[in-house]
Structures are given as structure tokens and as C-alpha cells.
């Protein structure tokens, strides 16, 4: 209901981990009571400890707790929560959940259910985007009639192109074509493979983007119809399509491109009647053309890098928009200041092919000081369980320029200590030694490529080679002395005699 401002007194945070903490922080700053929910193993979790209220929501498995849409809406009603913030993941992009909230009279802090549904479908959203004049990867889902049509279509969008099976998936029936003279052979091969795999030999053509970058635009829209772009984030560093490192601004961004991309993002959001925070993802190719990929209809994991360079508080803005408040003048001309990085600290072992590494956090020291922010979901002594996403914390840094931000990231990682489990920290340390990363020469395949090449091996710090031996040997002697000190004298004497006899001391 545009124009009507409703103050919120209590908000249910329907999530866990670092994002629940982030939302609870915003609520406390706004004087709104924050209610956490928790599954059985999360009773001692950081969100519960920092919340004003905490309510059990079920068993460990997400399906029996954080995904129980009906139970969460009912809980919100019971405890008198005016609104629900879904965070990201779990129910954040579940249009049905948003609709259930509306039915129960509980404000859903996010986009309208219809906008969410429209953006949730890949085919539907591509159609809407084309109609709204937002560039989409050229090509089509429609099958090609014959080789001639393929040739003229490929000519029209420009090589390289990709042939894809209409019924396809899993790489079957896909052929990359670099130039016109390869088309005929590739067309035959793709059709025959498609027929063999899917009993359907129809293929279609799409532009092939060479080592594209992943750029995304953060948008905000209020319920009065104002929609703004807060600028881009570069998220090209992904491991198996999972973002690992993000930064803002993008090293290749120009004011002109930022404006065009921002306008495209705002058009995209406007096309579906979007309000609240959302992210429009684009692929940017080497020639500077960009194409709509998808829209994430929610708060994004990596929102802090935008907060660093714009000085805006995106979660606060989300809550104000949900209250019906219009976006203020500070959102009108948003220019990035300095440079920010985010690294996602996962409980994964980079020495063991990123296998999950749950366990007790024996030691934890977050970095701090100038230009460093940590959004953590865990504390020292906490238990990282196997039940949920392995994201422990997001370390974000800011510097006056990209070089200073890199130096700060390096310093922050050197200060950081996480002991008891393995994390992705050594990967970031290796990346900081990588020339392509340092130069900002990124593409979405780069991280997987370098990992499989062995280019990103985490190296032992170049220092005292015998450090481990020194530390362990001294510790061992001290332990032995401690144990001897508490043993009965008789036993200790015997041990000492044996040692002497055998010439060990």
C-alpha cells in the first residue's frame, strides 16, 4: 500500500548464521525488537545469543525447521511480529511464503510475491527482459530449421556461438563454434548427439561469451515507485558457480558503462514491478557488451561491499522500504568511494578439494582496525555442524583505492585466526599472490581453471623452515614436565632413571 508508513515494533528473522546476525544488528539500530528462530542444534548459535527473543522452530534438517513456511508464519503471528525478514537462501525467494505472510497480515521484507515469481522463471524473465529492452544473451530457445538458418543466425549474432540441444542439459548436444567454417560439422555432431541422448535432434543457437565477467547491479525500490541503482559488484571469482570473492567497483568499470548497466538494471526491476532490495546479474564480455543473466529477488550475501563504497545501509533501507518509507535524497546520486573486497570464509578444506570441515572452533580471532568488517555467524567455542551451508563469516575490507584494499585484505587475513577446523583462508592467501587477481584480470572460469592447473596452491609462509619443529619440540618437553610434575614421585624417579640409563637426557 504505497504511501502509508507503518512503524515496525517487532521483526521475526527467518534465517540463521551470519545473515541473521546482520539483520538483528540493523533491527537493534532501528529500535525494533528482533526475534530469532533456531533449529535444535542452533540453540547456542550467535543469532540466538544476540537476539531479543528466540523461538525453537524444529529439528536439525532444514526441511524440519528453517523451511517450515507455515510454522514460521504462524510463529510470527503468535509472537506479534509485524514483519518477517527472510535473509537469503531458505525461504527468501519463495513467492508462496511471501504470499502466506501477506495473507497472515505480516509484512514480508522483500519484493512483492508477483515480482519474485516473475524473476524466478528463467524463460519468463528472459522474455520480460527482452520486452523491456534489457540485453539478454543473443540466441533463442527456438529450434533451428536447417544449417542455412543456423549459418545466417550465427552470422547475425557473431561468432563464437554455442549450439545447444533444445531438450538438452548436462553438456550433451552442446558444441562451441569458433568460426563459420566449423559450423556445418558442429551442427551435424550436435544434432546426432542430441538425438542419441534425448531422442530429439532439435538444436538452437546462442552467442558464446568468451571468458565473461560476472557483474551485478544492486537496486533498491521504494513503494512510491522510485527505483535506484547503487552501482555494481564484480563477482567473477567463483568456484563451481559459487561466489568466493567479490569487489566493488569492478576493475573494468567506467562511469559510462556503470550508467548504462545501472539503467538496464532499473529497467529490469521496473518491468516486474520490483520493490525493496534486489540484484540484477549480468555477464560482461571482452568487447564491453553486457547481457542479463538473472535477478536475485532478495538481499545478497555480498551486499557489504556495496555498503562500504556507497556508505549506505542496505538492510536498514530494506526495513524502511517495508515500513512504506520513501527512499531519501542520499539514494539519488550514488558514487562509489574507494574500493572494497569481500572474501567468503567457508568451513571447507582447500587442501582436500574443499571438503566440508565441521567441528568445534577452538580458537577464533577476527581482524579489526581501519577498513575491516567481519560479518560472522559463529564465535570462539562454537560448534560448526554438518547441517547447513558452510559459510562461517564474510570478511570485507575497504581501502582508498584497489591497491590499498588488497593490502588491507592481506593484513586482515594475516591477523585472522581460525583453529579447530579448516577454512578457505589459504585460498585467499594464494589468490593475493596471483598476478591476474592483483591486476583485476578476472573471468568466471578463472578460479576453477587456476585450481585445476594447480596455480593456486596455498604456499607455506616463506619463513623459518623449522618453526613447526621448534614449536612442537618445546611444547612436548613442557608437556612431559607437566605430566611428570603431577605423577607420584616413585614413578617419576623410575622414569628419570630409565631416561638416564638410556642416555636420553
Amino acid at each position, binding site marked *: 500500500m504505497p504511501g502509508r508508513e507503518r512503524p515496525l515494533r517487532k521483526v521475526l528473522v527467518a534465517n540463521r548464521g551470519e545473515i541473521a546476525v546482520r539483520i538483528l544488528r540493523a533491527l537493534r539500530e532501528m529500535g525494533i525488537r528482533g526475534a530469532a528462530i533456531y533449529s535444535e542444534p542452533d540453540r547456542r548459535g550467535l543469532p540466538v545469543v544476540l537476539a531479543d527473543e528466540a523461538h525453537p522452530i524444529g529439528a536439525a534438517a532444514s526441511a524440519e525447521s528453517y523451511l517450515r513456511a507455515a510454522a514460521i508464519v504462524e510463529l510470527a503471528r503468535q509472537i506479534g511480529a509485524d514483519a518477517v525478514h527472510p535473509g537469503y537462501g531458505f525461504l527468501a525467494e519463495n513467492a508462496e511464503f511471501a504470499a502466506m505472510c501477506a495473507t497472515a497480515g505480516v509484512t514480508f521484507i522483500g519484493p512483492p510475491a508477483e515480482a519474485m515469481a516473475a524473476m524466478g522463471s528463467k524463460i519468463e524473465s528472459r522474455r520480460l527482459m527482452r520486452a523491456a529492452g534489457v540485453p539478454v544473451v543473443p540466441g533463442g530457445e527456438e529450434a533451428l530449421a536447417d544449417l542455412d538458418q543456423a549459418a545466417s543466425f550465427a552470422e547475425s549474432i557473431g561468432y563464437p556461438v554455442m549450439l545447444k540441444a533444445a531438450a538438452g542439459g548436462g553438456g550433451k548436444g552442446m558444441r562451441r563454434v569458433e568460426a563459420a567454417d566449423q559450423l556445418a560439422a558442429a551442427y551435424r555432431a550436435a544434432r546426432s548427439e542430441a538425438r542419441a541422448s534425448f531422442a530429439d535432434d532439435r538444436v538452437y543457437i546462442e552467442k558464446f561469451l568468451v571468458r565473461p565477467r560476472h557483474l551485478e547491479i544492486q537496486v533498491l525500490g521504494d513503494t512510491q515507485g522510485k527505483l535506484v541503482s547503487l552501482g555494481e559488484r564484480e563477482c567473477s571469482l567463483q568456484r563451481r558457480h559459487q561466489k568466493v570473492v567479490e569487489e566493488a567497483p569492478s576493475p573494468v568499470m567506467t562511469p559510462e558503462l556503470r550508467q548504462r548497466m545501472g539503467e538496464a538494471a532499473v529497467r529490469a526491476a521496473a518491468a516486474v514491478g520490483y520493490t525493496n532490495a534486489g540484484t540484477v546479474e549480468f555477464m560482461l564480455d571482452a568487447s564491453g557488451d553486457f547481457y542479463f543473466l538473472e535477478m536475485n529477488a532478495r538481499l545478497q550475501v555480498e551486499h557489504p561491499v556495496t555498503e562500504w563504497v556507497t556508505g549506505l545501509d542496505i538492510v536498514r533501507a530494506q526495513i524502511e522500504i517495508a515500513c512504506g518509507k520513501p527512499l531519501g535524497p542520499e539514494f539519488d546520486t550514488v558514487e562509489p568511494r574507494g574500493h572494497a573486497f569481500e572474501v567468503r570464509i567457508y568451513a571447507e578444506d582447500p587442501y582436500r578439494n574443499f571438503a*566440508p570441515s565441521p567441528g568445534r572452533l577452538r580458537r577464533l580471532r577476527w581482524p579489526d582496525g581501519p577498513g575491516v568488517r567481519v560479518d560472522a555467524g559463529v564465535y570462539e567455542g562454537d560448534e560448526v555442524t*554438518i547441517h547447513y551451508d558452510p559459510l562461517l563469516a564474510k570478511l570485507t575490507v575497504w581501502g582508498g583505492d584497489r591497491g590499498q584494499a588488497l593490502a588491507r585484505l592481506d593484513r586482515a*587475513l*594475516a591477523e585472522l585466526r581460525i583453529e579447530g577446523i579448516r577454512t578457505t583462508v589459504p585460498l585467499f592467501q594464494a589468490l593475493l599472490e596471483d598476478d591476474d587477481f592483483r591486476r583485476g584480470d578476472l573471468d568466471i572460469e578463472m578460479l576453477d581453471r587456476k585450481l585445476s592447473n594447480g596455480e593456486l596452491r596455498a604456499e607455506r609462509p616463506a619463513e623459518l623452515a623449522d618453526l*613447526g619443529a621448534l*614449536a612442537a619440540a618445546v611444547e612436548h*618437553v613442557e608437556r612431559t614436565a607437566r605430566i611428570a610434575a603431577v605423577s607420584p614421585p616413585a614413578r617419576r624417579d623410575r622414569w628419570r632413571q630409565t631416561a638416564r640409563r638410556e642416555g636420553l*637426557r
Partner: protein
Amino acid sequence: MKLIVEHRGRADEVVVDRQGEVWLVRVGETDYEVDAVTVAGTARSLRVAGSQYEVDLAHLGDGRYEVSRGGWVEELRVQDPLAYLAGRAHGAVAEDSSQTVTAYMPGRVAAVLVEEGARVAAGDGVLVLEAMKMENEIQAERDGVVGRILVGLGEAVEGGDPLFELD
């Protein structure tokens, strides 16, 4: 005190001698003067020739230590020389062709990919463990025949639990 420290793929003789506030330590042929203090918990601060190193030191039992320094982790074993020699002698005899593969992490058995008695090559998947929203294939480390499979589909396992035998 004379010790054998297995580290970085080799075994070094290490002689440790307390001299007042500092430790005189010889590793192989090199002498070090070490000032080592506990910072808090498992954190230690070592000063060696003025340089300061902050390390985390966990005793894993049986003279095995994990030394870590912000990301980089090293596992070492410290033994007295006799125990070390006895261990080596025993190890030489005990080389066994049968192996029980254990879980290196807790998880839930999401799939069993082969049957008991199946012949597998190194790198072949045997089980899939699921944890933290990811599936992780447990592979045979060498060629062999899968003996008994000790876990069932859907079963929860802890790190270190036996999974299957590989003969």
C-alpha cells in the same frame, strides 16, 4: 632432551635444553635460541632471533602435534629416539595389504556406489557422504577389491568412523 621430530616429510633429531627463560634447540645441524610463551589457550608466541611467530599448537595425542600459523597447518610427531626406532621396526613388519577406509569428516551416507567384492581402481568412487549442503565422493586411494561396506545408506557417520575395507 633428545627427541625425534617427524616433520615436512623427514625425521630430524632435535635437542632441547632449557636455559633460564629461553630454550636452546638444535634441529639437525641448526641451533636456535627460542623464547616461547603461551598467549592464551592454544596460542603460543615464539621469538627466534628477535623475529616473532604466533602459532597455534594442538596436541592430538601420542606425541602428534598440529602447528598452525593462520591458514597454513603442519602435522608433526615428536617421540623419544627409542620409541621412534621401535615404531619404525614395527611399521616395517606391519605393512598390511588390507586397509579400512575411514571418514575424514562427519556426514550422512548419500549413496553407496559399488557392491562388496567389487574391483576398483584408484580414484573410483565408493561412497558419497553429504554434509553442509554438498556431496563428497569417498574414493579408493589405490587399486583393490572392496571388502565389507560398514555403513548403510542414510546412516550418519562421525569423522574417523570406518566406512569400508579395501583389500
